[in-house]
């Protein structure tokens, strides 16, 4: 199981493996906002918490179809399914590897991008906290979506369609907690909800996703 985690991270680090690209996308997507919306500082600062969360979510999304499709296409998934590893474990490890190579770097980079968007000072602490609490859910939900569409050729877009609505609760609570935190308001409830969703998805979705993969291999 650890072998799988190590392999996935190593694959991500290799040429064309996609590590760092999620980060780069995050950077560019955030940078696009001033180009589209105009460079006015006050406006940017107001929308910054939401924009950062949305950009992180899209950056996660783009790397989801790597989670299973490559392994499906080259036959590895068939072989893993007949190996001694339980499929649930495989799914959980893949989600974890995805978070380590995407969610975690995003969390570390987010404060820098906050600067670009004139994020108010009080918000940086909460930015990191909400990202840390929220991004694992993005990886686990995404892994579930990837498991559903693993049999669909180049299902990337379908995957986005399925996963984005599932991201809405995390996004809403995350951005709300961040906004409230930045304004010095109480944000315990959205923060708790955010953490609750993350824990729930980590606990339950690997089982559902494993089932979806078995159905897809059939």
């Amino acid at each position: 199981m650890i072998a799988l985690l190590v392999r996935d991270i190593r694959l991500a680090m290799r040429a064309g493996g996609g590590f760092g690209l999620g980060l780069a996308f995050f950077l560019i997507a955030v940078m696009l906002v001033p180009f589209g919306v105009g460079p006015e500082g006050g406006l940017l600062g107001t929308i910054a918490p939401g924009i950062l969360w949305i950009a992180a979510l899209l950056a996660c999304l783009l790397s989801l179809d790597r989670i299973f499709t490559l392994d499906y296409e080259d036959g590895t998934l068939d072989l893993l399914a007949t190996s001694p590893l339980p499929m649930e474990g495989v799914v959980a490890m893949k989600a974890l590897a995805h978070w380590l190579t995407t969610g975690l770097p995003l969390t570390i980079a987010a404060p820098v991008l906050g600067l670009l968007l004139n994020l108010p000072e009080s918000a940086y602490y909460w930015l990191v906290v909400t990202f840390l609490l929220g991004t694992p859910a993005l990886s686990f939900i995404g892994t579930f979506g990837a498991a559903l569409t693993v049999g669909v050729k180049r299902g990337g877009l379908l995957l986005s369609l399925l996963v984005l609505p599932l991201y809405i609760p995390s996004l809403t609570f995350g951005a709300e907690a961040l906004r409230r935190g930045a304004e010095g308001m109480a944000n315990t409830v959205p923060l708790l909800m955010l953490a609750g969703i993350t824990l729930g998805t980590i606990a339950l979705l690997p089982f559902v996703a494993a089932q979806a993969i078995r159905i897809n291999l059939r």
Partner: protein
Amino acid sequence: MELEVADLACARGGVLVLEGVNFRLEAGEALMLRGPNGIGKTTLLRTLAGLQPPLAGRIDMPDEALAYGAHADGLKSTLTALENLRFWARVHGAGEGEIGRALDEFNLADLAERPAHSLSAGQKRRLGLARLLLTGRAIWALDEPTVSLDVESVRLFARAVERHLARGGMALMATHIDLGLAARALDLTPFRADPDRAGKAGAGKDSAGGAGKAARPPEDPFSGAEDLA
């Protein structure tokens, strides 16, 4: 240890492909699956590997005894040959010594440090076959293992199979060429599913429960054609 398949029926893409498949394999035996393209060799092997449920019938073998080798090799193109093998070794709990032996047995030692994407078709295939030695499993179920292999590599492979059988293993192979192994052949043509049977049975009167002979695959509830209007 033995593998026994009784009255097996399997489907592919929702279509019944084979039924009534019966065979038995003892330790040290090999069985070649024969039959024209499209008869269902791949389907049968996937069913045995547990990748799809059988529609009917029994498959008797110990748990986790079967190593499946598909059309695709399951290689990661950016990892080297050695890294690829090492991953599978760790998944199956094999040690470094076994990796070395697998490399030798398929004459891959020179290629060990090459990334898999820079291997030729036949070299990739050899690497895929070397993985089998690391699974430590007794039953090899292989789908056209010799595709792209040159004469010399086919011989290497045949020898590897013979050694595996001598150790008490079993092998089940779908292939169109002759490997020069002393092995029984099983022609799948007689087990081709009768396309009319399902329809006829569905049209019968007792289609409600599908409680016929246990070995019969359950009726496709949609195969009755009579009231399409």
